[in-house]
């Protein structure tokens, strides 16, 4: 199943490697080798020190649900993809990333452990990272 007709990212020189890695099954974060900040979304310059010694770092692809909302109505979104769980996942490396969680909207909870998976797009070099629920710590 392809991501479309959901909206697809505009690929830029700064983000091209991120989407291509996703197509290979890897979730990338950015890491500033000057100040040590690990961040998301990708930028060529570090948002803490503005240094340009930024390198890609492969994330473990695991984390927990920091927050989530369940959209029952969403203009411009495919009807058959509702309800939609929009979430911030706090990755084990630290950054909170906006994403979708593939989970039963009535079962999901803040704090749930999640793991990344990838949905192909019609573009071979672009896949979309999403998360699946893998259990609860508590």
């Amino acid at each position, binding site marked *: 199943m392809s991501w479309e007709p*959901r*909206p*697809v*990212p*505009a*690929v*830029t020189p*700064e*983000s091209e490697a991120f989407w291509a890695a996703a197509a290979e099954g890897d979730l990338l974060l950015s890491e500033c080798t000057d100040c040590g*900040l*690990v*961040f*998301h*979304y990708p930028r060529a310059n570090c*948002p*803490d020190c503005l240094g340009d010694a930024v390198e890609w770092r492969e994330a473990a692809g695991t984390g927990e649900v*920091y*927050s*989530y*909302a*369940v*959209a*029952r*109505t*969403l*203009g*411009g*979104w495919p009807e058959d993809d509702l*309800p*939609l769980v*929009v*979430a*911030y996942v706090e*990755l084990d490396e*630290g*950054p*909170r*990333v*906006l*994403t*979708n969680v593939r989970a039963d*909207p009535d079962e999901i909870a*803040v*704090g749930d452990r999640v793991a990344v998976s990838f949905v192909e797009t019609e573009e071979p070099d672009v896949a*979309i990272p*999403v998360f699946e629920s893998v259990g609860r710590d508590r």
Partner: protein
Amino acid sequence: MAAPVYLAGAFEHPTREAPEKSTMQLHAEVAKGALADAGVDPAAVDALFTAGVPGLPPLTLADYLGLDPRYADSTDVGGSSYLSHVGHAASAVRDGKCDVALVTLAGRPRSAGQDTGTGVRRLKTVQDSFERIYGATNTTMYGLAARRHMAEYGTTREQLAEIRVAASRHAQYNEHAMYPDPVTVEDVIESRVVADPLHLLDCCVISDGGGAVVVVSEDVRSELDRECVEVLGHGEAIGHHDAGRIDLTHTAAVDSGERAFAEAGLGPEHVDYASIYDSFTITVLEAIEDLGFCRKGEGGAFVEGGTLQAPDGDLPFNTDGGGLCSNHPANRGGMTKIIEAVRQLRGEANPEVQVDADVALAHGTGGSIGTRHGAATLVLGGADR
């Protein structure tokens, strides 16, 4: 001591649906209304502030209105822009750059057929490709903030509903309110789900309309017959994703409020009336905490028991019915926040909700607290304080 600066005119367009008018026409009508309220000749306007106007905003608007400003500013931080504009206008007046600043807002999202939670298709910014592709809209993003606040502090949907209830009780006295019927906590809880935990009645209206205010120097004020409101303090701040460290339970009101109060030499305990941006119920709850009216996490308990209800609540808010029930023109609620605060300080609010107010606060939250937002706070003083 900084030279005093005043709000001399304020006008809210009575329309909530204007299919027969252009947006620019609404700008002209609110400009005319605010200048007439102040008793200022349009030819005296020497500064222009606006946001959200198509094209190059000050150029489009100056041309359309036939104005010749020597100062212009189109800072756009979403719905809070107009509160920022008043602060910027006050600084420009104090710098001697202008004496009569016109601030306008207008828009027609209702007539344009906008539905709740729209906008995912437009990928315009660098962030959109990491947010909108997942269904990030205002409804889902504020839903995330509400969920996190509930999870972290035990805030309940019933507590959030209290905010809508208070707004609706005020709206019943506003002949122009889009939703003038009082609602109960149960009505809010049982309204249809939009972006759980937010339901329909947790969300503001989508309305056409606009508003304008006129900011003037002491020299101009002294020549006017109209009761003016003093701009005592202004503060603003920007909150954002912070490289992945975003905290959904705090807004930039923590900083904008502190800055505005510091400039005014006042604190939350001096505020008699508050206009608080209400795109969603959670927007109000977080702002109340961040502005210092209660401690972080205690907003839910604070709003229980009619605290926000005029005229007898401890913190009467949005006595026009706010964006939740009355008006959210152009999807930007900052202007109407200023206008209702001016009404309160002049004693011109609807009589049933008029507060004995010497000091009012107007606060805006533009953009999205789920991603990035502008916060702007004004502390305003009445003529007799």
